[in-house]
């Protein structure tokens, strides 16, 4: 998931002599064949995937920050262990995804550099602050829950390395979602103060979670081409609806109120109908004016800068000892 910001439409501009290759490529996609790194692919397909996978990878890495914010304050040793493991899993997801992007011919360093200069997008959800312990449960429950809705179809994405990375990531995400929900359940069954903490977190995270699916289908410029290429299998609105249908009963079970006065169940359609989403907030956060955009990027830059001398030392050491390693191999 975390790819709501796919920007300008990429119009595949195939030269005439490539028409036949394009047709063959599309026929393979239509036959549900996986595209592998060494296969021919249209440049626009490659660029769309690089952008999408890199955004996903950056989101995992930036996503370590809001949750990492509570590692030192987790209220029990078990919760602390679970949270460390979760944040570490996100780092692991970032790593597989950067590797998947590298199979498309772009280096991890280049992608990270784009993030640090503010040119690459990552999921806007991580530009919201984690203010209380209940936010950790809510991120697991809602944010990972929304991520799973988006990611499960990606396990069948036409690009092999991305699809395979997603299989493993989805397993871990669904584990995180259950842990988050279990945390919320503990708060919801706890003291009045704990219940209030849980409700406050739901109030703050509900709408941003719905925005994670990206703009409404009528405003989403990418959907059609991405669906033709089977990079995307469902539209933003379809996925958002599934998420709402799955999540509202979970909130009810917790005894919490979804902060949408217009929310109602349409029995005939078998779906929940939600109130209007404030897309001006979505666009503001996307543009850099969310509550924590500056802090998140500053934290990534500061880690990168503070680590520079360490990476240089490792490279210098490897360089110095490369000769002796080669000699040992030769001998």
């Amino acid at each position, binding site marked *: 998931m975390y790819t709501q910001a796919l920007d300008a439409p990429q119009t595949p501009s195939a030269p005439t002599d490539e028409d036949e290759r394009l047709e063959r490529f599309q026929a393979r996609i239509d036959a549900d064949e996986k595209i592998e790194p060494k296969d021919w692919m249209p440049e626009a397909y490659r660029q769309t995937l690089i952008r999408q996978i890199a955004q996903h990878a950056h989101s995992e890495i930036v996503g370590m920050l809001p949750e990492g914010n509570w590692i030192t304050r987790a209220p029990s040793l078990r919760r602390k262990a679970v949270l460390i493991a979760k944040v570490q899993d996100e780092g692991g997801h970032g790593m597989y995804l950067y590797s998947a992007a590298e199979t498309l011919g772009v280096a991890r360093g280049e992608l990270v550099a784009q993030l640090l200069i503010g040119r690459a997008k990552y999921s806007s959800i991580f530009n919201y602050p984690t203010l209380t312990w209940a936010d950790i449960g809510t991120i697991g429950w809602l944010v990972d829950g929304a991520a799973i809705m988006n990611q499960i179809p990606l396990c069948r994405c036409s690009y092999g390395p991305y699809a395979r990375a997603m299989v493993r990531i989805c397993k871990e995400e669904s584990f995180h979602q259950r842990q988050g929900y279990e945390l919320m359940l503990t708060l919801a069954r706890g003291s009045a103060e704990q219940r209030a903490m849980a409700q406050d977190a739901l109030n703050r995270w509900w709408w941003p979670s719905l925005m994670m699916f990206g703009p409404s289908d009528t405003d989403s410029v990418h959907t059609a081409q991405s669906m033709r290429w089977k990079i995307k299998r469902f539209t933003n609105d379809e996925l958002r609806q599934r998420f709402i249908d799955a999540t509202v009963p979970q909130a009810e079970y917790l005894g919490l109120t979804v902060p949408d006065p217009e929310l109602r169940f349409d029995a005939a359609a078998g779906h929940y109908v939600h109130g209007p989403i404030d897309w001006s907030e979505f666009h503001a956060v996307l543009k850099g004016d969310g509550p924590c955009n500056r802090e998140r990027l500053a934290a990534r830059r500061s880690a990168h800068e503070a680590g520079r001398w*360490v990476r240089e030392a490792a490279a210098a050491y490897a360089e110095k000892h490369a000769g002796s390693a080669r000699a040992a191999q030769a001998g």
Partner: protein
Amino acid sequence: MSPAAEPARATASAEDRFEYVLRLGDTSLIAAQRLGALLGHGPALEEDLAIGNIALDLLGQARLLLALAGRIEGRGRDEDALAFLRDAGQFRNMALAEQPDGDFAETIVRQCLLDAWQLETYESLAGSRDRELADIAEKAVKECRYHWRFSAGWLVRLGDGTTESHTRVRAALEKLWRFTDELLSADALDARMAVSGIGPAPALIRERWETRVSAALAEAKLERPAQRHYPWHGKRGVHTEHLGHLLAEMQFLPRAYPGVSW
């Protein structure tokens, strides 16, 4: 050796065992708390993942040890009561563990000196007469071997890397070396635990620690700082100013909302 043939040993008191297990458990807990704060801020993604692993191992050791300490004490305190509801003066961790993360060189030097001590201690404790402690040590020693490989590997790369990395790691070593006095100077409790067959022989730990650390320093092209007497020992509850701040942050939720489950 049959129990009858075993040489007569002094029996350790429950108070001694409680204090001793706290020394181990609190050291792992405080080190895990320090490393946990670094997650997401490391010099490279690979180091973030490794540091997360080490923090998790240490936290796992702390949970087993604090639960054991609670059982020995017999006053109904579990791992969380011990972690979240004691003040700094009741913590028994080595003061080295509570030293701030600093730059990557300080983190690595702190971990390296501590890892060597934990590795040798648990190696020895795996043969402890206290079966529960021996079981925990047996698991911990495998983890500590990996921790040592990571920290000593970085000590060498930083020491023998660039001029800057060498300067930084040397400064970190100078800064933190005084806290090794506590790791290696046995006090009366360490001595009683050794005599009762529960704890390791202090001289053995010192010798093995010295050998291990000296070899890593030599490979890292670092000189060993002069050993100074530094008698303010965290293991007896005398800490540096850093521990109070660490605990204020770590214990905030259970203190602000007493008596609830999380």
